[in-house]
Each structure stands twice: as C-alpha cells, then as structure tokens.
C-alpha cells in the first residue's frame, strides 16, 4: 500500500514539474513584442479598467469602450506608430504575466516602477507622478494626523499595488488588501475599514463625487520618488519599443498634452458617472 502511494505521489510530482517547466520556458529574443506590433498592426494594451480617471469602461453608441488618461496616452503612442490600439482588460495582478507571455505589449494601469516589478518587466520613463493619500469617512476627517495616531485602525489598499507598501510602511494600522479599489471604498463606507490608501488623484475624485461621505486625512504618506512615478510597463529586451514609447512621452510632456489629457479624462469620468 505504501509503495502504491509513493508511486502516486511521484506521478503527481511529475505532472507538477511538467507544468512548471512549460511555464518557465521564456524566450530571450530581442524586439519580439515590437515585431508583433508591426506585423499585426495592432498594439495590445493590458489594463485593469476599474481605476477612473486612469482607465474605465464607457458605453458609447451602445458599445463598450475603454477610456481614461492611460488609454489616451496609449492611443497617442499607437497612432504615432501607425497601428491600431486594442485594450485588454483584466485583473491587475494578471497584468505582469500577460506582458511576460507577450499577450499584451504594453501595460498602463497607473503602475509604478518598483524594484520588484523591474525584475520581471521593463519600464518606460515616468509619465505621471502621483502621491498617496488616506481616504477616510467624513466623520473621521481629523482623526489620523500622525503615524502614531493610526495605531489600532484598519486601512485598506489594493493588492499588489504601491499603496499596499506605503500603507504597511507609513502607518501602524492593520492593512487589509483586496483586488479592487472599489471593494475597499465600499467597506470604508460601510465602516468595516477606517481608511483606504489611494493615489491622491483618485482619493480626490472620491471626495469630489461624494463630499458628504469621504474626506482626505491630513496624515502625510511620504514615498521615495522611484515609487511615486507611474510608468508604462514593457516586456524585457525591447529596446525599439522602449525608445519609441519614451520619445512619445517626452513629446507629450513638452507640448502640454499630458496635462490636458488628464483633465479630459477627469471630465469624461464625471460626465459618464452622473
């Protein structure tokens, strides 16, 4: 009997190894993503479209499309390369894997270029610099002012996001992580969480939309610069694509289009959610 069980375990192990081997076999050729964009005439952008004003779905003439700040920037890049933009929406945590498997050639999802992520993928130069804020219920607006005052509180942050690191390092609260920002803010509204660490712009949008529900705490959440800069994630070994993307960002920064796009995205979100 023991012998039989051993064999079974061996078989299970073998299957697991095969699966792992299949996944680990990654190509190291240069410019594969760039060539794919050129040959298919399509730039596929991976995003997690539940993050207005950066990316969110809208219904236009009965059809769903994605829009927002990131989508506008991506559109400009695609236009400049002479290709079409295709937006692929998925869970935030799946995005890096998609990039590594060349299922998408670019990821824009309000993503900052952390050290951990740099190990897996490449990043463009920053196109947006964010800061972090703590969104709280209006009644708690003046409750959290210093790191010490957060002791015993429960704060939420998006799983795998930069805000998760910030929340863990800069507060003494218990940190709850979930996949979706919206689910965290719902818990905040319901009183299950005392605060949610968000990108300041996003936190401001919440306060603007629901001024009687939310407020931004005065607690400061300082973050090193490298972790505040939102970049476009690209596959590794893509010098051509990276060069193109960086050129485009420089251009949009210089002619002031980036700021305009952000305002446009905010307006669009306000229109569609009313």
């Amino acid at each position, binding site marked *: 009997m023991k012998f039989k069980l051993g064999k079974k375990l061996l078989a299970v192990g073998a299957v697991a190894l095969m699966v792992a081997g*299949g996944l680990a076999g990654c190509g190291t050729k240069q410019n594969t993503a760039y060539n794919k964009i050129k040959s298919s005439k399509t730039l596929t952008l991976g995003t997690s479209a539940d993050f207005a004003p950066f990316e969110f779905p809208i*219904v236009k003439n009965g059809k*769903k499309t994605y829009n927002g700040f990131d989508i506008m920037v991506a559109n400009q890049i695609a236009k400049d390369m002479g290709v079409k933009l295709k937006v692929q*929406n998925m869970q935030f945590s799946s995005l890096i894997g998609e990039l590594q*498997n060349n299922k998408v050639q670019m990821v824009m999802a309000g993503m900052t270029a952390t050290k951990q992520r740099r190990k897996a993928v490449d990043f463009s130069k920053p196109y947006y610099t964010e800061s972090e804020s703590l969104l709280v219920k209006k009644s708690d607006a003046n409750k959290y002012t210093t790191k010490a005052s957060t002791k015993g509180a429960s704060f939420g942050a998006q799983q795998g996001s930069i805000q998760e690191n910030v929340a863990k390092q800069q507060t003494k609260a218990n940190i709850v992580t979930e996949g979706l920002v919206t689910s965290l803010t719902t818990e905040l509204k319901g009183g299950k969480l005392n605060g949610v660490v968000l990108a300041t712009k996003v936190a401001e949008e*919440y306060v603007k939309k629901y001024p009687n529900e939310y407020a931004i705490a005065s607690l400061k959440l300082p973050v090193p610069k490298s972790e505040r800069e939102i970049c476009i994630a690209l596959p590794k070994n893509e010098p051509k694509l990276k060069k193109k993307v960086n050129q485009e960002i420089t251009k949009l920064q210089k002619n002031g289009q980036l700021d305009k796009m952000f305002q446009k995205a905010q307006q669009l*979100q306000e229109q569609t959610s009313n």
Partner: protein
Amino acid sequence: MMEFDFLGKYWPMFLQGSELTLVISIIGVIIGFLIGLLLVLMRMSKLKVLNWIATIYVSIVRGTPSMIQVLLVYYILSKTLPIPDVQVLGSGLDRIIPGALALGLNSGAYTSEIFRSGIISIPAGQTEAGLSLGMSRRDTLFEIVLPQALRNTLPAMGNEFITLIKESSVLFYIGVQEVTAEALGVGGTLYNFIPPLIVAAVIYFVITQALALLLNWLEKRMSKKYVVSN
C-alpha cells in the same frame, strides 16, 4: 439609497457580459460532461493504468483552486497552441477558449464523481442479469446501467452545472469580459460598487434558475419513461 440609473447607460455591457457568461458556461458544461464520462469509463476499466490516471486527475483538479487552474491552462495553451485573437462578444478567442476549456477540465473531475455515484447506485444484480443474458460488458454498461445512472445523477449534475456558471467569474483573471468583470468595471467608473454587483447577482440568479427549471423538466420526462414501464 441604491440607484440603478446607470443601467440606462451601461446595459449593453451587462448584456454582452451575460451572453459571454452563457457561452463559456455552455462550452464548459459540454466539455465537462464529456470528460466526466471519459474519466468514469477509465475508472471502471480493467486496465489499472487508466484507472490510476483518472484517479490522479480527479485528485489534482479537486485539490487545487479553479482560479489557479484557469491561469495555468491559459498560460500553457498560449505557449503551445496559437489561437487567433478573434473578438467574440468583446473578448478574444485566445482567452475564451482556454477559459472555457479550463472550466470544462475542472468540471469534468466533479462530473466523473457524480457519474460514479450514479453507477454505484445501480444494483450489481442488473449488471449480472445483463451479462447472464449474454450481453457484452460494454452493452450492459451502455444499455442498462448508464441510462439509469444518468437519470439518478440529474439532481447532482444540475448542481454541478450551476456551480460552473457561477465559477465562470474567475475567468476575469485571464481577461475574459464576463458579467462579473463588467460589473466591476462599471463600479470602478461610478466609484460605487454595490449596485452593479447587485445587477450581476440578479443576472446569475436568472440564468441558474432557468437552468434549474430546465433540469427539473428533464428529470420529470426521464422518470416518466420508467413509470410507464413499471
């Protein structure tokens, strides 16, 4: 307090998401049914190897989360099988096919156990009777045991199908825009999560209830045959 005004603007998203949920569920159920049948035949086979493979398969699938299975099937297929990313109902086929396949592979393990319980429930005397009448083992299985077993397994099978429909929401991890994904997207735009989720819940409920009614009807129809023969 709850406002559903957004439906006026966003209903096409929910409609498309529901259609996609239905499509992947139907494909998943069919694949699951066939794999379940194959697995249970393997388990009843005289060849020990087949029996082992089926047993190990069921153990692995039952013992790992479906979300991880979906991701693994998707990444392995995307490396080995080039599926064109033709857009169907707002998602690429290169995502829908691996997704539906993963659901089917998952469901197959459970379905095979349901089949097995159905077959066990048929008294051995029936098989013996078939064999002693000179029928082959195969004929006995397919003509006598399986038709009755199938009828006995219908309630449990209905349960499994309903589970699969609900489980299909994990496909958002590989970017399939089924109805949950759409609800989350709308929630992210509104900065309000609960109303779109309620809409999605209602949609799932309607779909699963329709399926339950269908299975009820099928069950009655299949039992009628046996009542007459009594």
